[in-house]
């Protein structure tokens, strides 16, 4: 008897709550019908196709703003550096336009001076921020062109592609999309955008004379020009510093032939030993581009 009463009460409660819920649902439905904001649903679909990292590489305030610009102002989809080809094609289909592929670029830090190889000239006690420390001799680092290593670029990378290894910033090319934020932030301006399939670089940024350079860093380019003599078209010498002109054309065998005496010219993959393991198990060409 008591059980039946309790059951009846529970049923009544459930029924009342259910009816209230239904009623409110109907109210919401009516409100949505009458008060919804008219928006172009293409903008929403394009926003979903874009990477959604809001990195600002396109020059607009986030992916939503860029989608609006594409639809309303006719902006070019290739403005988004992080967008991969498949998404770009789909966005083209939505708008009924054709979009050409964009050359993918990645960032690279032209410095090899980590804590073991670069010599510090003073103890620094202040903010752990590269831009703030740059006013104090780069946090006490002897080389005035070198990486300060306090991680401002790494903290601000929207894709988490920069690693600070032993006081030196290293960009992971597989995670980097080339948005250019780190390039702007670096106080020493030693991050550059290079083609995504670059194989090797000269990781030094110092324009000092070799004698001065060697006093402050054991890993800098000494300007011996062995590389320039071996492959004059692929290298460009400017005093004590040599730069690779076309980094996508260099191969491992070329580097072995040159045999850079300080090893400042080395393959990109040398910084990432995990790659070599991965390449053995996967097919070499299908490096799937991730739309982050």
């Amino acid at each position: 008897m008591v059980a039946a009463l309790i059951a009846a009460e529970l049923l009544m409660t459930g029924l009342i709550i259910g009816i209230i819920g239904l009623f409110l649902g109907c109210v919401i439905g009516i409100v949505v019908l009458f008060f919804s904001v008219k928006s172009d649903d293409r903008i929403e679909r394009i926003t979903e196709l874009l990477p959604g990292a809001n990195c600002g590489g396109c020059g607009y305030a986030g992916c939503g703003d860029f989608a609006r610009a594409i639809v309303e102002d006719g902006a070019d989809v290739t403005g988004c550096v992080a967008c991969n080809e498949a998404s770009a094609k789909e966005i083209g289909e939505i708008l009924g336009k054709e979009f050409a592929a964009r050359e993918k670029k990645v960032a690279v830090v032209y410095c090899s001076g980590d804590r073991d190889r670069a010599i510090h000239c003073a103890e620094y006690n202040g903010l752990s921020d590269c831009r703030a420390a740059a006013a104090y001799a780069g946090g006490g680092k002897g080389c005035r062109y070198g990486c300060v290593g306090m991680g401002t670029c790494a903290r601000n990378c929207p894709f988490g592609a920069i690693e600070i290894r032993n006081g030196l910033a290293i960009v992971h090319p597989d995670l980097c999309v080339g948005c250019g934020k780190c390039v702007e932030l670096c106080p020493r301006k030693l991050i550059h955008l290079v083609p995504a399939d670059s194989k090797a670089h000269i990781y030094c940024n110092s324009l000092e004379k070799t004698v001065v350079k060697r006093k402050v860093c054991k890993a800098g380019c000494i300007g011996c020009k062995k590389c320039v003599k071996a492959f004059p078209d692929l290298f460009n010498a400017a005093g004590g510093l040599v730069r690779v002109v076309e980094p996508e054309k260099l191969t491992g065998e070329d580097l072995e032939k040159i045999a850079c005496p300080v090893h400042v010219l080395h393959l990109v993959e040398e910084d990432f030993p995990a790659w070599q393991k991965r390449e053995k198990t996967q097919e070499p060409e299908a490096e799937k581009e991730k739309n982050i």
Partner: protein
Amino acid sequence: MTMSEENTVPHASAEEKQKVRLPETKNLILSPSPHIQVGPGSAKIMCQVIVCLIPAIIAAFVFFGLHALRVLVICTASCAAFEYLWCLAVKRKSTVGDFSAVLTGLLLGLNISSLTPAWVCIAGSFIAIIIAKQVYGGLGQNPFNPAAVGRIAMLMGASGAMTQYAVPRSVFFAPVADALTSATPLSMAESAAGMGKSLEYFNSSGFLWRAFTGEIAGSLGETSVLAVLIGGIGLMALRLIRWQIPVSILATVAIFVSLVNHFSPGTTPGVLFHLFTGGLMLGAFFMATDMVTSPVTVKGCIVFGVGIGLLVCVIRIYGSYPEGMSFAIVLMNALVPLIDKFCYIKPFGHQNIKAGRIEPRRGEIK
């Protein structure tokens, strides 16, 4: 500058040159200005506050014996332990070394009765440290006074266990009642006023002297006004607190209570009774003045103090609780960001923008 004398290149003798020693550049520190610092660091400030609490701790031991020490030790140890465990759990460097957990533990212990069971102390410490402080981000980020929040939580959650107060050991005066526990003077006065009885006893000089030295029932720190005052004067002398806060609290309470007694006599005992009983003194000098949860500007501190004074009186006289200091402190802590905003001091040379524009200098944004 007259250069009439000829200056030739000095020929320093070899020994003289050897004696001159230049500084080692390897040891030089490169850091931004300023290059000198004055004043104590955070940990030292906390230690100095703890030292100023020692008179109150001694008084608690004198009147309540070993039970007082038991409560204080349990509270302090569990506060420090919880902070250490939290830092382990979130993988941060341990912050127990800045002594803020120890201070919170001591204040928490001084705010509760000596008969509080151990599990209540530990639960209160947990709430004070973890819920009221660490969850917000640690020292400096909490909006509410951790000790006050812990005490309120203990009062709400274990009110039975919390409202048992021991009778103090009779040191200066004759014992009042032959019992082990008793109600605090505040609750006795409230029930007396509620029943329409006379409040003569509570205004008598005999009682007030007992209240001043501390030989009344109550929590460990609130009984002895003398000990708290000694500590409070120490705090003000060492410039550890803003004196505006305790002075404005006490002044507001005094004025409010005298007004109440003037317009409706018999509602509540007199000014001195209110100043000497309950957690008013301890709260005014040690808890309301907690730097993290009090306003930054002096004007703001005065507003804060007046607010606390008003709330305490209202809760005590018209509210249902006999004691309202912890509630008053926590309620005013909630208003501190607003107080800071409205008592914002204008920069030197600030001009009302409506009163005219000045051309910004090079590099400044309009």
